[in-house]
């Protein structure tokens, strides 16, 4: 243990403040989305607060440990991730089309959520160790070899969103560790083209579609053209845009958004919570929340820039990538510029796993920030 009271002084105070304000805003929006007007919101709020408190306790516990300890266990962490994700096919609980939950005693949790943190830790260690070799294309494929097993396992449980998060984190960290932008663009641009070809061929020639479920394909089609089936697959996109757009500058007011209160919005307390925010608090609310996220991400980048070692820096970059992708994909989906994938908005969407994992990720950043190199002179 490398604990020292002085370490607390190094903590960047903005990060906890920004995170707490997101959580508090989230509690208000969840209240509205879960029927505060009818008094049905309490269990949701209780769960959300409990998760936040649990997350904060975990952060505090985490602070006592030096993050560098994880470096020694990187292989174990990786194997644990694969086992966890594999277990879900044996013991998993199905929720709306995906097998995503695992129960251990009284606690239900989503291994794919946990895998995000584990993979950040593993990749940070792996990339840091191979930092000097990253300028070759071969190393990029080697890195991909490690990320593909969890990626495929998560896709197999129909969680395309989280799988894409993992891939995005890998790209960001690989670049952050010194990988060449040219290689990244080559490999992922090529990969993207292949995916587009496979899907096009499926739609036109009805060739079999690996990994993707029909409903996921429908989401993509509906993203391209929501009017194709306004009561079916395009419904969510249309209703979400209506909710946000009708909020105008100042919003309909707390608890007063008809799209939300009359249930036109789907999944409104989880994946589509940003639409509720947009409807009830308008452009002002949307801009404030986005600016808080922006500031948070910039603060995290600042921690990365000042990290004591390459390992810590890569963890921080991974966490930045995690939040950036979540915000981009979730908000983009609500605003109709990204396809629908069910990933939550960090700190705001209702959901215990997401809240705890997001807080742990913040805890890692604080930990690294606290133990940064001293700039005394």
């Amino acid at each position, binding site marked *: 243990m490398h604990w020292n009271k002085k370490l607390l002084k190094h903590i960047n105070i903005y990060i906890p403040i920004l995170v707490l304000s997101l959580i508090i805003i989230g509690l208000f929006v969840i209240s509205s989305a879960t029927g505060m007007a009818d008094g049905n919101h309490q269990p949701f709020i209780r769960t959300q607060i409990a998760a936040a408190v649990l997350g904060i306790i975990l952060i505090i516990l985490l602070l006592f440990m030096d993050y560098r300890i994880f470096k020694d266990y990187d292989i174990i962490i990786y194997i644990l991730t694969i086992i966890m994700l594999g277990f879900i096919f044996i013991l998993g609980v199905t929720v709306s089309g995906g097998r995503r939950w695992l129960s251990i005693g009284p606690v239900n949790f989503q291994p794919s959520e946990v895998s995000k943190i584990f993979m950040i830790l593993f990749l940070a260690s792996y990339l840091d160790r191979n930092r000097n070799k990253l300028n070759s294309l071969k190393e990029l494929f080697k890195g991909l070899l490690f990320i593909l097993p969890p990626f495929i396992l998560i896709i197999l449980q129909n969680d395309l969103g989280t799988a894409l998060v993992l891939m995005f984190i890998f790209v960001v960290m690989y670049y952050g560790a010194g990988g060449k932008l040219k290689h990244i663009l080559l490999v992922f641009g090529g990969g993207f083209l292949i995916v587009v070809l496979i899907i096009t061929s499926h739609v036109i020639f009805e060739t079999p579609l690996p990994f993707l479920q029909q409903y996921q394909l429908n989401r993509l089609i509906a993203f391209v053209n929501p009017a194709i089936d306004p009561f079916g697959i395009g419904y969510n996109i249309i209703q979400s845009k209506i909710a946000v757009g*009708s909020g105008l500058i100042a919003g309909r007011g707390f608890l007063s958004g008809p799209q939300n209160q009359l249930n036109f919005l789907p999944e409104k307390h989880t994946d589509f919570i940003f639409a509720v925010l947009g409807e009830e608090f308008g452009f002002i609310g949307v801009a404030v929340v986005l600016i808080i996220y922006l500031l948070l991400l910039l603060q995290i980048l600042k921690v990365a820039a000042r990290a004591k070692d390459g390992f810590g820096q890569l963890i921080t970059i991974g966490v930045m990538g995690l939040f950036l992708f979540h915000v981009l994909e979730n908000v983009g989906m609500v605003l109709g510029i990204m396809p629908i994938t069910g990933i939550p908005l960090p700190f705001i969407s209702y959901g215990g796993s997401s809240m705890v994992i997001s807080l742990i990720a913040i805890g890692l950043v604080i930990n690294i920030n606290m133990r940064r190199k001293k700039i005394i002179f």
Partner: protein
Amino acid sequence: MNKRIKLFKVVIIVIFIVLIGRAFQLQIIQGEQYYRLAENNRISIRPVNAPRGRIYSSEGQTLVSNKLSYNLYYQPNELPPGLSRDDIFNQMARVTSFTREELEEDFQRGRKRSSPGEGILIKRNLEDQSMVKLEENRDILPGIDVREAALRDYVYDNSGSHVFGYVGEIGMADLRNLTDLGYNYSGGDIIGITGIERKYEEYLKGNKGFESIQVNHLGHRTKLLDEQNPEPGHDLILSIDWGLQQHTEEIIAAKFQQLQDESEEDDDLASPQGSSVVVMEVDTGRVLSMVSYPDFNPNYFAEGFRSTDVNQLLQNPLRPLINRNIMTTEPPGSIFKLVTATAAIENLGIEADTKFVDSTGRFNIPGWSRPFTNWLGYGEGELSFTRAMARSNNIIFYKLGYELYEEFGGSKLIETARDFGLGIKTGIDLPEERDGLVPDGQWKRETRGEGWYPGDSVNMSIGQGDILVTPIQAAQMTAAVANRGKIFKPNLVDEIRTAQGDVVGEFQPELLSQMPYSSNTFEIIEKGMLETVMHNRGTASTSFSDFPIDIAGKTGTAQIGGTGTSHAWFVAYGPVPDPEIAVVVFIDQGETSTNAVPVAADIFSYYYDLFTEDEEIEDGE
């Protein structure tokens, strides 16, 4: 290293500029448009149908009313994601007695006429049994909605059916035309199709209201935002005397049945094809009874979708749906002698006691070989004019017709017929009335390509040839004799009232024309008609032999061109000298006027309560 962090910074800032820019586009630039979409989502404006006006008899009995019924609607927008119409319909077919195919058919039909916000009407007038099943299975039938509706209720079923007509769902053509004319109809609305229901549609329908409601994503009502109550339609009070109407229906049905039975036993007798009776006040044109037989049950149409019953009606060769009083045009036969007599008295100086001779029972137009014959095989010898009427002697009337032709050309008889209102609609307040036909030279040239021959006038003098009349025209004509030359427009509605009881329209007798003939002329004709009915040699005397009041009448047995059969006519009014009502009985292929006469006698005796003991026995049944 810092270079890479800086690139991240740039990427992050660009992403957030895009996100905020997109929010700005949705909420500020396109905000108004999305706001409207949200309001459309939230607010559903549903029309509320007005209760249709009721119809009462002149005595105040409720004849046509409305009753509560339940309609089944399908709301596609209420379907939860993942469920299709197929799932719901299969589910419904399982729990109710409706078949899957039937529901699909109803859906396809309903889809064409659905109006926005209302859902798709699948079934009207659900039976209790189906209601219970649907209610029990509500939870597994999302998107299925049962709503209250008013169902037209014809209280006495078949009685008065041809007067009331019926209502039904508005047709595509009607919808287009009425909407173009500025009326507020939408698909699936109930509208008068025939009869009074059609003619007075404008009064009966009332004005729709609306409800502006806030709905949730399932389309369920959460709040009433605004409403305008519908204005109920106006009530109608008919001139129909309901007791008389029902009595008339009974006796005409009995007579029809009797004739049908006789025709089955005797191959020489034609089977009757239908019958009609109209009773009209001679001094006003008010119609007290109007019966057409066979009749139909208008409830079949109101209830909708009972296509088997309706198909049976449509396929019935006796055509129960037509109102024979206004829609059949047939040769009048000897009842037309009222017209010929008028022309003869006015123009040839004929008096009541002018003597005529029928020595052979035959009449020849000079220079023509084919003789015109009487209904008797022999000559009746010397007859006065009134006796000739009472005996319905054709030979005398041929002579009069020929004389009119010789002295005035073919037009005199034709003009007189038109003075009596023949050849054009009477204007009775019912739709689909027909004109009939009073042929003339021009008509003959246009349709036959030949001129008007003396034989045409001779034929017309006894109501044969091309002349066609409707029973209601015959009633108008008969009443004109009784009232000394006044042609009244027949009328069925006495009063139009608002639902609150305020009178908005009141019947006034409408005199269409006053014929330019002296009352002496009509007195002579009346004398002939009295002899027809009250003198034991008259053609209608048997049924009236014990009548304490005097009835004037004229029989008619009209041959149908090219067939051996005849229509039976009898027109009458009474009591003389102060006649109140005219009665016209017509039996399509009724063989002889003798079959029509007793029906009229029965109507007079009922109306004037002539044989009280008999009535009491009937009432006691």
